[in-house]
């Protein structure tokens, strides 16, 4: 190997060595930033949950007997920098002592369920349920989702939850 060739090889090795070092620096900075940004962007989204709290539906005396009635409830959701208190819709069916509370969210794709002629319908895709909440027609994969309720004093309270849509089994979203 001539001296000239050896010198060229050294020069080339030095070039690639400095290139590798520069690449490592770029990779290191990208990794630090990438991990930090990844945690920043994703972590709170994964840990965000709806508060499982009892919320007032209203005085029992105000709920009509024998037919589904629509009520607004206030639900707190911890969403980052705020505790968002939004109104949600529930359907209450009271037959004497027996009370059933349904969420008004369609189990198919999440449209709002309405009541018509002693039954429930979803106008988005024509799903239908009977007055007991059993699916009778349309693409809905399951019956209406029933919410846990209790009576405190003379006030009906409900534990509002969100459920996964498009599946045949009722599954709480958390």
């Amino acid at each position: 190997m001539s001296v000239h060739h050896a010198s060229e090889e050294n020069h080339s090795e030095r070039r690639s060595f400095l290139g590798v070092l520069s690449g490592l620096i770029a990779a290191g900075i990208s990794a630090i930033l990438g991990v930090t940004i990844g945690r920043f962007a994703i972590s709170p989204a994964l840990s965000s949950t709806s508060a499982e709290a009892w919320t007032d539906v209203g005085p029992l005396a105000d709920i009509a007997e024998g037919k589904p009635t629509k009520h607004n409830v206030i639900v707190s959701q911890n969403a980052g920098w705020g505790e968002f208190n939004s109104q949600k819709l529930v359907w209450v069916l009271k037959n004497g002592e027996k009370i059933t509370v349904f969420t008004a969210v369609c189990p198919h794709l999440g449209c709002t369920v309405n009541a018509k002629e002693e039954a429930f319908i979803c106008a988005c895709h024509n799903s239908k349920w009977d007055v007991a909440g059993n699916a009778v027609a349309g693409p809905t994969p399951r019956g209406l989702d029933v919410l846990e309720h209790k009576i405190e004093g003379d006030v009906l309270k409900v534990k509002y939850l969100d459920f996964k849509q498009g599946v045949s089994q009722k599954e709480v979203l958390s």
Partner: protein
Amino acid sequence: MAEKSSKGTQAMDWLDERTGIRHAMDEALNEPIPGGARWAYVFGSLLLFLLVLQIVTGIVMTLYYAPTADHAHASVAYIQKVVPGGALLRGIHHYGSSAMIILAIAHLAQTFLFGAYKRKRELVWIVGVVMLLIIFAFGFTGYLLAWDQAAYFGTKVGTAIAGEIPFIGSLQQKIMLGGTELTTVTLSRFFTTHVFLLPLALIALAGLHVLLFRKAGPAGPYHDRDNHRVDRFYPKQIFKDSVAILLVFLGLVYLALKWPAELGPVADPTSDYLARPPWYFMPLFQLLKYFPGKLAIVPTVVLPAVIFGVLFLLPFFDRKGERNPFKRPLATGLLILVLAVAGGLIYVSKYQDAHNPEFAEKLKQQDEEMHAFFKAPFLPQQIGAKTVAVAAKAASNDTVAPKAYLESCADCHGDKGEGASAPELLGVAAKPNRSHDDLIKILGDSRAYGLKKPMPANFPDLTDEDKKAIVEWMVKLK
């Protein structure tokens, strides 16, 4: 291995046929650097890196930031106190803005000293000066976004200064504020300017700056000693740039972790907050003290117009070929004078604040309030229907709060106990450890009940009668 390499080459060939990437990379990496690679040439690459870093950290912070007066502060506090990595990213963005200003000034100063604006590099220089102005505008618009006391009152003073400019000042101020007052509209305008308009302008100008620089070529050293030496941009200069970038990045990370970016209590327009600008606007702030009233035109218009007028026109009236700073005493002296005066004004401003007992006391108090808020745990804002319901419920309480409550408690807990920056008091007496006697004791020593700042530890100004009146009213709140 050979097959892999061949596949890699094929992929590169495919890409090259469609984009011409090989030629572009060859042009970029093999650019000759007269006089060889140097540490003195790292400023441009550093600024480009900081621009990208500011854009990336700024974009990710908008995942949580809410640009409205009601929510901006809470969203920044959430980023700072709760989101993993939020304090680090906000700190990097905060110190990155100062680093950009320092490095942009250093880059321009070096170009000025080495006479690198000469010989067909006039446009490179002019675009660079415009970029410096935009970097200052970034600082001004970004300062308000946290919507804390310092941000609100600092921007109020800043926009008032903009209003001092003759003929156009009043109109300019209204356009900046979106009206006559600093409101949520102002915040929207500053946010849009900070995250859309200025980045677009700076990216476009940075591209033009690099393009013009490539066209003109590097100026090389101001002396002839290294005329025989020419390096390619890759790898020596890139390596030097990379090391400088790493050091600056690690410096920003260190600062962000060691001294997190500050955030004080939410803006309260009714307070008597003593506004102080960020360090880079302090020379202008200090000059305004020497030119009161109508003379304010001197530091706000005349001086900036002269300085930036000279900077813009510099390459056209300085046509001599000489680039050695030691043989251009006037230019070198002028640069040193301007930097020394700016530094001196910052020092004098700090000195005067420290030696004026009234100001020093007030600034100390503000600093303590800022640190107290900073250390306090994050409290999520109550938003939406419940707030309305609570307010309605509070409004239905027909008893008027006692005077002592209105003076000592209402600012935080609301006039009717509906809650504001502190929790609501409706139904408080039904809660555990909040009986009539407990509430009296809390007013005497809130820490004994585990209550933390910003709730005061006690209320020395309240008499026993005041405390009794407050508590008797509170227990009636349902």
